């Protein structure tokens, strides 16, 4: 196994207030790593830092985030743009909100892919249709010709994921990708992400507060609280033998379905 992205003693502050403290971990090739924790624990901040998405107030104040021998926080905007999107993709809680409402989905995906690689419109549509079929979309052409508002929230989310996968990034970062969806669609999105890993061997970091999603998807988990990692381990280990009191409290709070 090879480390593909590694965080080393990372501190992140917003306006001088620490949000993440001394976090170290590494993402392995083709691994799904879940970062779980409650609101304000710093889990989103952690993956946003890799993409340079901390905003004006946020800053990595100590430590390194290594990708292919380069420290991401040290890169210029321009260098970062070459990596983000193309090599490291990201999806958010509400992918539908990042679409422009008055252009078709296909036009927008074409534009975003063109920013990373030279491609003709025809080639793009061929590629997009093939890829969306692979991810289980039955009517890829119909979706590409739709406006975002013509798709349901769940479908928008799935299209957002397909869009992030178009440049075939090595790493996919996902920030609460299923939290705004109802259970039925949540399951479809989980299946889609698992299929991406099967088809492309993509490594993923998934941030979620939903432990059921974590259990279904993760190989390994980090539990965060107040900006620090309080526990990390394999999914089996964390669910069966949580070492930290906070992890136990978190697990106990999840209502379990008695079938």
């Amino acid at each position, binding site marked *: 196994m090879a480390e593909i992205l590694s965080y080393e003693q990372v501190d992140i502050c917003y306006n001088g207030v620490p949000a993440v403290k001394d976090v170290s971990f590494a993402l392995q090739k083709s691994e799904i790593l879940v970062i779980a924790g*409650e*609101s304000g624990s710093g889990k989103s901040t952690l993956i946003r830092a890799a993409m340079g998405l901390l905003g004006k107030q946020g800053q990595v104040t100590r430590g390194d985030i290594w990708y292919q021998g380069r420290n991401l926080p040290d890169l210029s905007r321009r260098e970062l743009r070459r990596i983000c999107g193309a090599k490291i993709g990201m999806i958010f809680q509400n992918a539908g909100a990042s679409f422009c409402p008055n252009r078709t989905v296909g036009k927008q995906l074409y534009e975003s892919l063109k920013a990373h690689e030279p491609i003709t419109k025809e080639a793009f549509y061929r590629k997009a249709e093939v890829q969306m079929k692979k991810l289980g979309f039955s009517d890829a052409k119909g979706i590409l010709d739709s406006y975002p508002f013509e798709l349901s929230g769940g479908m928008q989310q799935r299209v957002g994921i397909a869009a992030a996968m178009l440049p075939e990034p090595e790493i996919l970062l996902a920030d609460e990708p299923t939290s705004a969806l109802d259970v039925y669609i*949540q399951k479809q999105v989980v299946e889609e992400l698992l299929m991406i890993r099967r088809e492309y061997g993509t490594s993923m970091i998934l941030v979620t507060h939903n432990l059921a999603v974590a259990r*279904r998807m993760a190989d390994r988990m980090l539990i965060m609280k107040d900006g620090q990692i309080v526990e990390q381990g394999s999914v089996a280990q964390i669910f069966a033998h949580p070492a930290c009191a906070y992890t136990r409290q978190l697990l106990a709070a999840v*209502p379990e*379905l*008695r079938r």
Partner: protein
Amino acid sequence: METVLEVRNLTKTFPKRGSREALEAVADVSFRIEPGECLAVIGGSGSGKTTVAKMITRLLPADSGQIFLMGEEITHAKGKALRTIYRKMQMVFQTPAESFDPRRTLGESAAESLCNQGIGKAEAASRVQELFLRCGLPEEYLMRYPHEVSGGQCQRAAIARAAVLHPALLILDEATSALDMTVQKEILELLSELRREEGMTYLFISHDIALVQQFCDRVLVMDQGRMIEEGTPDEVIRAPRQEYTKRLIESIL
């Protein structure tokens, strides 16, 4: 004892944009809630759960059908009559911060409903303080503004504000969905306690079926505006009769 709430053939349609057909958000929904019961309404997004709650609380007029609260018809209640109704029925919504006036302290907002019922300021203040304490909010929280407290604390204040009137029926529309798991657990414990001590009746709208199984006595399943199945949580979860319910339950990870 008297049935707390009865809903008969409730229907609501909304105009659909760019189409002549109307969207049937709620179609011919009927059910009853008995005293002390906790009734859950579950279903996917867009199934009509919230629209039902909005019609019961009279935030949205029903197209047709009838609503009875403690035996009295409230379908077309207005003005003063509504005020009496809100003494018996209160609601708590998903995003607590949005249901408080941002310019007023939590204590002021909570006391307002009592003052509306003609209770003096001093008594209102002391009753609110007592309820805040029971909901796990120390005295200093009375003076805080909604943006100065966490989501969980704000939801506690919303429950305190609703409970201070000792309503017979509390309508909870996804009241714990926006909260962290550990906070959700605390809020549910608070609701169970209020139910035990005050004998409150709940209409609990949620998309979280595991939660409903733990917390509710009876479940109604909604799909596309219709009530498609009813039973105890164990009946509905272990032996769903409808295809939609089956799918819903199989989707739970």
